[in-house]
């Protein structure tokens, strides 16, 4: 009995994870269920891809570059005008790291929920793909590895593009 109670107590935080995950410096967001499934893709199984992306440091540089570029590119500037870039950088790094099997958990929201109010169109999706390709080029990720990663992201177009 005692054990069961203890187990329940320890398990409790897991049930209570519908509380939003926000870190200092980030804006508040509505409550959501935290789960790696929110990342929208299954991770790679080996570490080949992580190496191709130069580990977590490489991923971090790519995301920083991407988030900088979406604020400059005329095709994406409008969509990201009111974004919380501190949170976006963190969650994107988590998501990429999770998918690339870098040993991270994704604590952000799912792709439908986070994009549904932004009215993203197909041409904007493609613009972001190109900016990501530019960032991966600058990091020196091989074209083949880039495409393997993009193959994981491509189906998310159905969730991100809403009109």
């Amino acid at each position, binding site marked *: 009995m005692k054990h069961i109670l203890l187990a329940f107590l320890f398990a409790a935080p897991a049930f209570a994870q519908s509380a939003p995950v926000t870190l200092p410096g980030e804006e508040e967001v509505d409550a959501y269920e935290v789960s790696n499934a929110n990342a929208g893709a299954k991770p790679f199984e080996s570490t080949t891809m992580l190496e191709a992306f130069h580990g977590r440091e490489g991923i971090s540089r790519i995301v920083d570059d991407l988030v900088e570029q979406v604020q400059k590119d005329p095709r994406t500037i409008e969509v990201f005008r009111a974004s919380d870039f501190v949170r976006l950088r963190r969650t994107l790094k988590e998501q990429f790291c999770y998918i690339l099997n870098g040993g991270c958990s994704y604590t952000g929201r799912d792709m439908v929920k986070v994009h549904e109010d932004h009215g993203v169109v197909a041409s904007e999706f493609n613009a972001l793909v190109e900016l990501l390709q530019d960032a991966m080029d600058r990091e020196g990720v091989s074209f083949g590895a880039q495409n393997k990663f*993009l193959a994981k992201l491509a189906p998310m177009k159905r969730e991100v593009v809403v009109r």
Partner: protein
Amino acid sequence: MLVRLCVAPIVLACAALPAVAQEIETGGKLRLTRGISTIEGQGGGGLTPWALITGDETDRGIGATAHVTAVELPDYSFLSYGVGVGLFDRVELSYTHQEFDTQDVGAALGLGQGFTFGQDVFAAKVRVAGDAVYDQDKWLPQIALGANWKSNDQGAVVNAIGGSDDEGWETYASATKVLLDKSLLLNGTLRWTNANQTGLLGYGGNLNDDHELMAEASIGWLLSRNLLIGGEYRMKPDNLAIAQEDDWLDLYAAWSVTRHITITGAYADLGSIATFDNQRGVYFSLQAGF
């Protein structure tokens, strides 16, 4: 008509219509995903159409391409030029004019030096299922159905060499899949046709008049965002008693020089044409589009 349709239950939809009409976009496709233009004008490879829709537009806009293609063979030279329009990445309409110059062969066959067959190709294609680029989690390829109406301007000669008609039509189905994790593009096309040398020698003939099913295939390997290399194969009918007709194949490299310009070079083996064998030569195509 629109106004009359705007009764109470759909008044909202009607109110939205003008807004939609104003928002027609141009551009937005990823490089090379509009394909190049075939010798017959469809979005595709060089010899065979793909299920991709020409033009750079997405589902929210319109796009267009124009192309010039030349093929230099040992005994012939071929030129085609035309325009294609893509509507909402769904429908493709194209017109292409072709000129097939018989050079010395024309003299040898008694047609006259540099005798030239001309052909107009009016084509339409509709994308019916799938998404070649984004559906990376599904096996289903992008599938399109197409139809071509072709008219040859040398009806008398077509008849003289045993061809049945100087006008013809074809239908086809194409399936295209990008295997992004392997940087590969695959296409298969089934064409229902009776065209002789794609119609440059007319349609139907003294050996066979009926439409037959012909298989075509392309493969492409993406070396970079802007460079695709690969090969194509196109089965062809053999309807004329006077001359055996061979299947076609090529090896190509397509380079998206800028967002608007794609240059394609190929080595093409077009087999025997009007009794002149081993027509192997170079193919060069310039496509401009938005």
